[in-house]
């Protein structure tokens, strides 16, 4: 057993053995979800707080289902606003949480680094469920799980990630996780969406979708923030769909078995054409199923129940 961390703050800093352990654990967890009685008692008596400072029904529900299937007591706290208002400090938040004595805190926050800041102050395990444009580690792990399940491996594959890399925590976590397990990663998108330093994370830049398609085994299309249009990364959804979207025609530029993924929710007809999203090459719904299994695995590993009582407590990485 390689897993000895207190927290899951990001993919950065995880070693490949730890990633593989999550994926292997998730495989057994997926079996539980396919039984008639989808519940095991491994986290009975454990309290998990889902603390969402940023709305995300999909991720929160996925964690909640994972928690219930493991028999944990789940508490949902949704805080309004994208950041704590002046006067209530991060420490106040941490102290209040600690008073509830949770075992695991699942934290979604718009400000990067917030999970790390809380993890350093709290004895509870902290799971980063997305922090700004930093990381979304369980999303990356479920992406890897989905790919591995379908193709049997990660090493040696070429995976493309296309869209708003600059603002995407999914892209960062995916690049790091895929590289850790030996995949080649291409990233692309309009110039304003490719951030400096992405190459240092291990990705290669292939700006054009047409050029990327023939090279990849898997293509992850990122969600475009239509709200961000005021920020003018692209002129209109129509133009994005026309020039940067994955249409059925463009998909034919790819290899025959090319698999299409998307972290969801899909802006249908913008990043991915409906017939592609619903087509035979799409893994989008498989990702949702994998999400529950991967989150069950993460909660299980972080709860420490798999460890002998004397096991060394490792400090959270990333």
């Amino acid at each position, binding site marked *: 057993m390689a897993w000895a961390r207190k927290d899951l703050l990001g993919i*950065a800093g995880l070693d490949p053995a730890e990633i593989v352990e999550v994926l292997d654990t998730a495989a057994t967890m997926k079996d539980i979800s396919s039984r008639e009685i989808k519940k095991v008692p491994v986290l009975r008596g454990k309290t998990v707080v889902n603390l969402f400072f940023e709305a995300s029904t999909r991720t929160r529900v996925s964690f909640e289902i994972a928690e219930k299937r493991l028999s944990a007591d789940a508490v949902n706290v949704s805080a309004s606003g994208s*950041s*704590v208002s*002046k*006067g209530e*400090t*991060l*420490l106040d938040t941490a102290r209040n949480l600690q008073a509830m004595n949770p075992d695991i805190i699942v934290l979604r*926050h*718009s*400000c*990067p*680094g*917030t999970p*790390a*800041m809380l993890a350093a102050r709290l004895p509870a395990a902290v799971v980063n469920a997305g*922090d*700004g*444009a*930093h*990381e979304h580690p369980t999303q990356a792990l479920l992406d890897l799980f989905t790919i591995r399940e379908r193709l049997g491996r990660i090493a040696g594959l070429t995976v493309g990630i296309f869209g708003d890399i*600059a603002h995407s*925590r999914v892209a*960062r976590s995916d690049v790091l996780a895929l590289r850790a397990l030996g995949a080649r990663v291409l990233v692309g998108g309009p110039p304003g969406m490719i*951030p*400096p*330093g*992405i190459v*240092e*994370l291990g990705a290669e830049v292939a700006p054009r979708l047409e050029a990327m398609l023939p090279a990849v085994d898997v293509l992850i299309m990122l969600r475009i923030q239509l709200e961000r249009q005021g*920020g003018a990364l692209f002129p209109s959804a129509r133009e994005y769909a026309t020039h940067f979207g994955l249409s059925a025609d463009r998909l034919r530029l790819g290899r025959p078995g090319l698999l299409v993924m998307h972290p969801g929710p899909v802006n249908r007809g913008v990043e991915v054409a409906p017939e592609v999203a619903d087509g035979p090459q799409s893994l989008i719904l498989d990702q949702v199923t994998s999400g529950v299994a991967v989150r069950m695995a993460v909660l299980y590993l972080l709860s420490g129940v798999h460890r002998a009582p004397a096991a060394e407590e490792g400090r959270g990485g990333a």
Partner: protein
Amino acid sequence: MGARILIRGGRVIDPASGIDRVADLLLEGGQVGALGEAAGEGAAVAQVIEARGLWVLPGLIDLHCHLREPGHEYKETVLTGTRAAVAGGFTAVACMPNTVPPNDSAPVTRAILRKAAEAGLARVYPIGCITAGQRGERMAEYADLVAAGCRAFSDDGRPVMDAGVMRRALEYSRHFDVALISHCEDLRLAGDGVAHEGAVATRLGLKPIPAAAEEAMVAREVVLARQTGARVHIAHVSTAGSVALVAAAKAEGLAVTAEATPHHFTLTDDALEGYDTAVKVNPPLRPAADRAAVRRGIAEGVIDAIATDHAPHGTVDKELEFDAAANGMIGLETALPLALRLVADGEVSLSRVVEALTWRPARILGVPGGRLAPGDLADVTLVDPEEEWTVEPERLFSRSRNTPFAGWRLRGRVRATIVGGRVVFRDGAVVAVGP
């Protein structure tokens, strides 16, 4: 004021006078008296300070700090700020006007000066607002402010985004021969960024501020300096591009000056790893190449002055998510030893560092001091260049503790600070309070 003090046997380093030699220095009547082998001979000296092995420098002058009074006294006051100043070897500080209310009227200026007189420690030179209320719309009443004691003008922290307003302010400022200090930041380019746009911000997912946000504004100020003939001082230069723009402006003979902070020439954006809000500053910490350009700029005199941008904040301002945390760090008590690291590393000459902390800021502000010629102010800083010490935030004199240098081992320690011929700090203690 100021009885006779003889500082005996120290190494007197005064770049403005071209002096660097072991000598006695006599202070009398609040002024520098004689300098030389037998400077104190025959005089009735009230106090002799043995300075063997010490450096005797003109009192350091910080042309950019935040004293937070009025309005944010929980962060710093004129008293606590000037205690920190003299502990750091500064005999004079110029304080930025972003107080509450901002220093855009003579009563505020006078209130700051009254507090400074009550403290009786460092000289305080208030900086007035460029525009009323720092709103960037209508210029403040410079005549009134200068009469009350303002020595420069700045909307620090709130760049004057309207170039037309800045142009008129520069033109008008010429009448008073004061520098307008520009916090160069194009707010549209900076957006809601919190870190330098580069590999580190990308890795950490921090919202980026491009170097262009600073450089575009520096370029604008250079153009306006050419247009108006006014004195423009660029605050906290942090990028290689800005250094190049200032160098070009100087080569052209424009009245453009610049400063850099110890944190920008010491740290890089790598310090953001771990999301320590103590290193959240504006402009942000930059990569090594920019830091190197800033160091070269200091070495070559393109960057005239070293200024602290001492920005005290309480834990309620800093113990927050990175995005929500306030910008700035304290710096008065670490500036000199951090600057001396540049000398130890062979990157900047000692005389250049001393000049950047004394004579040049005095000239930019148009104030006396910064030099040890006979008749100059008896403002002197004594430094033990060999003493090593560890930065312990709880032992600093500033009211705030927001420094990322906690635990750093620094070399060079202020042993005594003399203002107007009075010893106000000596051997770790502020020794005189009150007028």
